[in-house]
């Protein structure tokens, strides 16, 4: 499932390690740093992280898989997050969620066949007064509607 960790990526993980080894509770900050650098946390990095942090592989695996934010597979070129929490539901987020699935041809936590988009549900972006909210990569969108959503996705899709 995971692509093998290429040597430069392995090197990067081992370079990151020393900054976090002395930090109390350093595993989460380290995992964030790895994901920031690589876009995901490859399964083959787990033994290296475990050894570096003086933890068992099971502990590292447990933490990685417990938190929704960490991904063990590379994301698509663009990550589309649709808020599905109450304030967004009250203004049509479920319709947007269904639209995203049909436009991208993938479900939750999946990547479109062309590798361009990963679709993620998110439970609150803190933009509840201007719902529904969608985040695409780093860009936030509020008062999203189906026409606007389609245009934004089409623009990104053709630019890639």
């Amino acid at each position, binding site marked *: 499932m995971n692509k093998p960790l290429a040597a430069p990526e392995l090197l990067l993980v081992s370079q990151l390690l020393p900054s976090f080894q002395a930090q109390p509770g350093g595993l*989460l900050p380290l995992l964030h740093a790895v994901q920031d650098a690589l876009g995901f946390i490859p399964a083959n990095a787990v033994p290296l992280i475990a050894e570096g942090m003086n933890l068992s592989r099971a502990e590292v695996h447990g933490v990685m898989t417990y938190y929704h934010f960490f991904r063990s597979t590379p994301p698509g070129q663009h990550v589309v997050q649709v*808020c599905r929490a109450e304030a967004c*539901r*009250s203004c049509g987020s479920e319709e947007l969620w269904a639209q995203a699935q049909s436009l991208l041809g993938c479900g939750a936590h999946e990547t479109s066949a062309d590798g361009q988009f990963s679709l993620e549900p998110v*439970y609150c972006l803190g933009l509840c*007064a201007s719902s529904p909210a969608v985040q695409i990569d780093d860009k936030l969108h509020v008062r999203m509607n189906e026409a606007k959503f389609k245009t934004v996705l089409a623009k990104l899709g053709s630019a890639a």
Partner: protein
Amino acid sequence: MITLYVPCDSAALAAGADDVVDALHAHAQAHGVAIDIQRNSSRGLFWLEPLVEVLTPQGRMAYGPVSPEDVPGLFEAGFLNGGAHALSLGLTDQIPYLAKQQRLTFARMGITRPLSLDDYAAHGGWVGLKNAVAMDAAAVVQQVLDSGLRGRGGAAFPAGIKWRTVLGTTSAQKYVVCNADEGDSGTFSDRMTMEGDPYMLIEGMTIAGLAVGANLGYIYIRSEYPHAIATMNTAITLAESAGYLGDNVLGSGQAFRLEVRKAAGAYVCGEETAMLESIEGKRGIVRAKPPLPALEGLFGQPTVINNVITLASVPIIMAKGAAFYKDFGMGRSTGTLPFQITGNVLQGGLVERAFGLSLRELLFDFGGGSRSGRPIKAVQVGGPLGAYVPESQWDVPLDYEAYAAMGAVVGHGGIVVHDDTANMASLARYAMEFCALESCGKCTPCRIGSTRGMETIDRIGTAANKEQQVHLLRDLCDTMLHGSLCAMGGMTPYPVLSALNHYPADFGLEAKPVSSV
């Protein structure tokens, strides 16, 4: 040179504030007009974002919501001198939505630039900390006790009692932890505070540190709030170089430092003990209590844990005194709460008012009714674990005790409005689904009960023996309420049962006299 203000709050950015700034600069440059655009925090009137303010001799004049296409027209209308335009809102301070508020904690919001130490100091910042430095620790704790400040995160536990407990311990290492894992849908006051007035939180945490003898504080911020994380990190660095944090806080001889910890998308980490586990680098699994975190908290040491708004309320208490703060509110709910009006509402935003106003005032006097124009059907108060409040209860004063008495919670002050197209059975099912998704798995009622709950609600919709299924669901909710380790499983029944009790028709049931939760 004319000064303009365009917010940098992420809700303003999401509405296109940066594009408006670019358009303003481009137009001004093309026409040889000198303008200075300051990026302030947001007033919290989100239906008006991007809100552009112009500094005039009369005060700040507001225009909004402004799109880049409106910019040439605004210049033609002479908005730089406060000229009339279709988007004109008059003097910002006199916009009724703002004028009717009692902004204590949010006094600077929308006025100052978030990272400007000068702006913060010029608007009453650091006064509380300076007063605290001049007092002994027990006196500071007494002020917080006397103010009646209760935890704004949901549980409403008196903050001063936690502080007193930590102060009374003899451990060499103590911590202050700020719970900024604001995961409740319908809330954004923590996000606004961290993005818009970060020094207020730093000041509140530093006062807590000095008061209980802690030299290190952590701010646990959700990963969904990248702007808040960035702003807090910068603010900590700037505050430290200015001597408000570090080895010798304002010459007090006491050290206090702060560190931001980024969460990773687990809702249950908003529960305080799960959050401690997460900061310790583990899976965010709820701990059994006792021991209380005030005695054995982070890394086993005495720890003050408060949420963002609780800690952010401390500077004004220390600046103006416990008596000043206590004058606001009603009964045992003292002070103000930043209510957040969200969802299907015309004028969504932040309303800071003393406890005791009614939901009806928030929904109509402030919110202006539903955004869709349809009748409001149900209002969820206090986040995803809060009850759905039907119209018959909209006149009950928003006060911790009054809400508890009707089986609801004020919680974090989030208010989500649903119009009459909402299906309450499907929202009840969603509450169970969310619990199943976010349960840490430690206790059975939450881990298993949430999934059984979804199935039972589905069967109420389809099975022939509806009444038996309803009985089962109530039984299950009773087990979750009384048998769960924390509020995740223990409060999921609130939205479920309130939906069932007040909107039986949505479950295909006949209306019956309403029993309480």
